């Protein structure tokens, strides 16, 4: 009955499909939240659809469910492929799939009824935390054993990032979720904010970033059919990432009374983040140099390269907004919401989608049902997200400047109303993009032309 769990690459495919499904779920919750910021009486007084409960469902489902799940699926394919071996244990990967998705499902199923720990990005209740940690530990074991049985001697940069993202998460997640306090998942007193934002920042930084970087390092050279620009740069980017990123969570509570030395460290290292980001972007850019037509001509490559562009924008904006004086205006308002969207959907999400479309034929043995639908998805999400970024950044500047000049939060609400309406409108494009992706994925698996073994071999060898 459960023989499917032994089929090669079945777990990778399962992660990809789950990611596409969670994208739709997350986008639906995002849409309702956006509507509630325009019209709070829309679906009023329905317990499982109040803003305070639907927002964390949206955020967590997008982070863990869409981006995290889909990129993990990609890695489960490319890690063994790059090591010229099979995944150590397919059933074990399915077990990880089960635990991981149970945690993600505890968002919509639990938060809707106030079963949450309520700390941003650490909301999952204790038992769901344990489930996620189990999934990660099993993945680590599985990946290390795959490395052990490899036939390719060299470890390609994507392998480092993929393995490391789980090694770091296995330490990060339990610390920040304070798993030794099961009932609250929190430390008492102000110090909790330091624990909280340790993961709050490392979730994008040491889980999603390495997952997405690994996938980009895999996809771009394959599409351009050129070798990686520089091994040294990849090394520098990798080590700088972990050395700097871990220190900067404090910039989320920069204006709260945490110790000054922590603020200083977080600001200095936030600025220093420009270094690893530039290295990664430069390295990939140089790899694709002279091959732009191949990258932008391939819908999957376009999504991945689009993700790199968003990465660059995000990581120029991020260090800037950690500057204390600037943060007086940019903190607590929609500026940050805009930043979070280009980081998670722009950088993580684009690369997840691009890598997924690139890898899907390799794990399913079927040609993508429609490349035009992939292009359409790219177009819809790009329009929606660009509008999001511009609208939310502008709304944030209006709020922040007004507050800083003495206007009250309540007084400024009418000023952001037109922006909240535009945001909800652009959300429709992103929701449609997610639906088209799921539709295209479904038709690929049901109706996509089956690739001949020769074609598959040629595709796999492209690296």
């Amino acid at each position, binding site marked *: 009955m459960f023989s499917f769990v032994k089929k090669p690459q079945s777990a990778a495919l399962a992660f990809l499909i789950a990611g596409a499904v969670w994208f739709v779920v997350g986008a639906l919750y995002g849409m309702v939240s956006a509507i509630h*910021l325009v019209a*709070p009486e829309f679906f*009023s*007084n329905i317990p499982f659809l*109040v*803003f*305070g409960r639907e*927002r964390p469902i949206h955020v967590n489902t997008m982070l863990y469910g869409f981006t995290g799940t889909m990129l993990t699926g990609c890695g489960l394919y490319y890690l063994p492929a790059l090591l010229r071996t099979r995944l150590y244990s397919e059933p074990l990967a399915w077990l990880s799939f089960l635990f991981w998705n149970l945690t993600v499902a505890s968002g919509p199923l639990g*938060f809707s009824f*106030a079963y*949450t*720990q*309520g*700390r*941003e990005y650490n909301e999952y209740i204790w038992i769901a935390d344990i489930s996620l940690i189990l999934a990660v530990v099993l993945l680590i074991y599985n990946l*290390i054993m795959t*490395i052990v049985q490899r036939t390719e001697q060299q*470890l390609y940069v994507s392998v*480092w990032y993929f*393995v*490391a993202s789980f*090694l*770091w998460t296995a*330490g*990060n997640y339990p610390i920040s979720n304070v798993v030794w306090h099961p009932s*609250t*998942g*929190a*430390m*008492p*007193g*102000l*110090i909790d904010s330091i*624990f*909280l934002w*340790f993961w709050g920042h490392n979730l994008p930084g040491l889980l999603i970033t390495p997952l997405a970087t690994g996938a980009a390092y895999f996809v771009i050279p394959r599409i351009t059919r050129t070798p990686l620009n520089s091994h040294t740069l990849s*090394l520098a980017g990798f*080590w700088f990432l*972990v*050395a700097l990123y*871990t*220190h900067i969570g404090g910039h*989320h509570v920069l*204006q*709260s*009374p945490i110790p000054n030395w922590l603020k200083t*460290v977080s600001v200095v290292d936030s600025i220093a983040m420009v270094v690893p980001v530039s290295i990664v972007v430069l390295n990939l850019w140089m790899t694709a140099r002279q091959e732009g037509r191949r990258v932008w001509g391939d819908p999957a490559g376009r999504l991945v390269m689009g993700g790199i562009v968003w990465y660059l924008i995000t990581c120029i904006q991020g260090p800037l907004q950690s500057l204390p004086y600037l943060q*007086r205006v940019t903190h*607590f308002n929609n500026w*940050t919401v805009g930043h979070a969207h280009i980081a998670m959907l722009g950088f993580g999400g684009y690369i997840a989608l691009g890598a997924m479309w690139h890898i899907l034929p390799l794990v399913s043995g079927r040609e993508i049902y429609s490349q035009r639908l992939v292009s359409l998805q790219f177009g819809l999400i790009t329009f929606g997200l660009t509008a999001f970024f511009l609208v939310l950044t502008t709304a944030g500047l209006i*709020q922040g400047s007004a*507050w*800083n000049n*003495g206007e*009250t*939060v*309540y*007084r400024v*609400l*009418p000023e952001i109303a037109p922006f909240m309406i535009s945001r909800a409108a652009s959300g429709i494009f992103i929701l449609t993009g997610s639906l088209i992706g799921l539709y295209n994925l479904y038709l690929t698996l049901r109706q996509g032309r089956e690739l001949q073994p020769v074609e598959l071999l040629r595709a796999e060898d492209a690296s």
Partner: protein
Amino acid sequence: MKMTPALLIIGALLVFWASAFIIVGIPALTMKETPSEIWRPMTAEEEAGHKLYVRNGCSYCHSLFIRINDWDIGAERIAKSGDYVGQEPAILGSERTGPDLSQEGGEHPDDWHLAHFVNPRFTSPISLMPSWEFLGPVEIRQLTAYVQALGLKAADARVARQQHWKAPAVAAYAGGLDANVEWLHSQVPEVWRRMPNPYPATEASLQRGKRIYQEFCINCHGPVGDGKGPAFRYMNPPPLNFTTLRRHLVENRYIGGIFYYQIMNGITGTGMPYFKKHLESEKIWDLANYLGVSFVGYTDANIEPRGIDASYEEPWQNRYPQPGQEGAVTGK
């Protein structure tokens, strides 16, 4: 440098855990929990409310710390680390779609909070907050207890002031419409009572006043100013019926200064909040003109005593006669 499995795994873990020790370990070892001067432990009911606050995601729209550059409610007290002792979690928040709540305790009386939780637009017409009526009376009471404790000892002082003034306000209301207005007027300092509205009640001014009325006042005082907005049935004492003011003008002439003072400062103990943080001078005077013209049928705009007209003012004749002198022309 060649990446081997050992270097990858051991190196990645070493750098990570070293950083984790610096960023989380050292603060855990060195940060001391010393209560600040406003700190006190929370009661069981306040704790229950805190849990509701956390579990229902209030922190996605409300922060719990005041920064040095803040002006809104609570801005009198910039957060100190000792304010959060023992709170688990001390949920600071990352967004202000609604105001910071770290000093919310005692800003309003309990009945205001009840109306506000049932439907935030009852008290704050343009609020984006969801209705929490579905939580039921017990949980709304717990949430109210928690919100009233925000600010701890400083909140207790404010709550005590609310309670102190609630009794005479309720008694005045029970004394009948006229006694109520007399009591309300007696709380306004003498110098404000004979102060006419210095702003001419032009069409533009009345339009601005109307907009402010709709954004701030309408759901308590009602669209026709009779005090029967949707919040009416939650408030004790209920919102003022403006139409009763007509027979209580000071010396049958003055009302502007009283309006201004009460809007600016609020009436502590009742649901009437102070608006001086939201509205600056001209907006309050425009609102006072709108209230007078729309609900009293009279405004004291521009009558004596008055000084030199402001430079922008066009010649303006007060067309609103004093009560009992209909047809007579007052002012200049």
